[in-house]
């Protein structure tokens, strides 16, 4: 049996109904994930927007651009493999993860690299970029973050990312968002569907009864 769909594109695919074999999900049948961070305005901190599946950081960047910056404004995007994000334990309510971290730094001879630290201040909200610092590893980075980035406001969870793992936006890339504020056709509201429906109903049934 061939699908007969209302959508001509589906009919062109000549899909044959297959009911004999049950679909079996295969483990690892998805590409790896990448975390996406957006800067919505210049001078505003980057914040987590979501994830995309992709084969490489470059394709992740392409997908993230259309996935998470289709509307509103965007002045920068960072993309990093989920496997490169180091995550602390998550606290409840007003408790800060920083209160559970040691104060003393472990002296180390390992070489230092740049790390980006992200804070979660409220459950259900996005992680926000808190700052950049030099550290010898992820563990070292969060202890240094306690000294350098803890503002006293409870931080429920910390993400640490090595800066060299991040695919960032170059100045020359910024042009790709230049017409974003004009793309009102991507806003549901610009079609004024409610207003048109109301007019249509009034035309058909007369003005609404008071």
């Amino acid at each position, binding site marked *: 049996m061939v699908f007969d769909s209302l959508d001509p594109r589906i009919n062109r695919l000549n899909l044959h109904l297959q009911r004999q074999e049950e679909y079996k999900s295969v483990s690892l049948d998805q590409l790896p994930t990448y975390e996406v961070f957006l800067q919505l305005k210049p001078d505003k901190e980057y914040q987590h927007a979501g994830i995309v599946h992709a084969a490489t950081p470059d394709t992740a960047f392409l997908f993230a651009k259309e996935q998470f910056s289709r509307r509103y404004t965007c002045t920068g995007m960072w993309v990093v493999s989920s496997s490169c994000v180091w995550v602390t334990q998550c606290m409840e309510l007003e408790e800060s993860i920083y209160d559970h971290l040691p104060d003393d730094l472990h002296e180390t001879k390992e070489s230092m690299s740049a790390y980006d630290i992200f804070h979660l201040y409220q459950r259900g909200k996005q992680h926000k970029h808190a700052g950049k610092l030099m550290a010898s590893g992820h563990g070292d980075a969060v202890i240094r973050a306690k000294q350098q980035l803890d503002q006293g406001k409870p931080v429920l969870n910390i993400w640490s990312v090595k800066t060299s793992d991040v695919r960032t936006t170059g100045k020359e890339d910024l*042009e790709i968002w230049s017409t974003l504020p004009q793309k009102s056709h991507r806003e549901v509201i610009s079609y004024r569907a409610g207003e048109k429906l109301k007019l249509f109903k009034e035309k058909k049934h007369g003005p609404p009864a008071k």
Partner: protein
Amino acid sequence: MGHRQNNTALKELLYRIADDLLILGHRNSEWTGIGPLLEEDIAFSSMAQDKIGQSLVVYQLLQELGEADPDTVAFTRNAQQFHNCQLVELPGTDYEFSLVRHFLYDHSLLDRFRQLTGSGYQPLAAIAKKFMGELRYHVLHADTFIKKLGTATDESKSRMQKALNHAIPFALGIFEKSPFEQELITGNIFVGEAHLFEIWQQEISKIVSDTDLELPDLDFSRAKTGGRTGKHTEHLQPLLEEMSEVFKLDPGAEW
């Protein structure tokens, strides 16, 4: 050179661009919902939407020059009245062909509009500048996939190569000369198809040389021409009928 003649040349240029954008936008939108993976489906659909939006802007320029309104122009002409190259009307039978076409066509479009930012016809120069950002992303998308799939596995390379071999003669047809070529050049409106072809050739050769793919012969004698003067493949008329099906139910409807 009279003003009137100049307008005819300009209109012909604008129709080529707008019709290419409309037809390719429609063809690419056919992948919406059935793209190879969700994220790519969204990205490719979004670029198709950009192309249809760009075609609208160019049809509006034509309207200012005395042509009918964009909806009438887009939805009521038959295939012989379309000035698009044959490349854009070919069915997107498989994704590799759609990607290769996207790569070959979008480079020509970026180059064309880059040249038009310096056009002596100011309204065209202004929209060319406006389109730069969108086109930059479209070409980045295309180049990334050509480089990735052109170097990945034997299967990906052979499929991309086959698509490239099939697409090249049609891609050469993008640069079919206008009967008003000389007027456009001397009128400082556009640098001309021959010049554009040179730039395009250099750019795509550079990208393809970073892959394991082989760029077929770009000799212009192989070009599939005719599209610019209304000679199309059998694929355009059915596309136009499908595209205008809803419009024709109620041409006066407000959307």
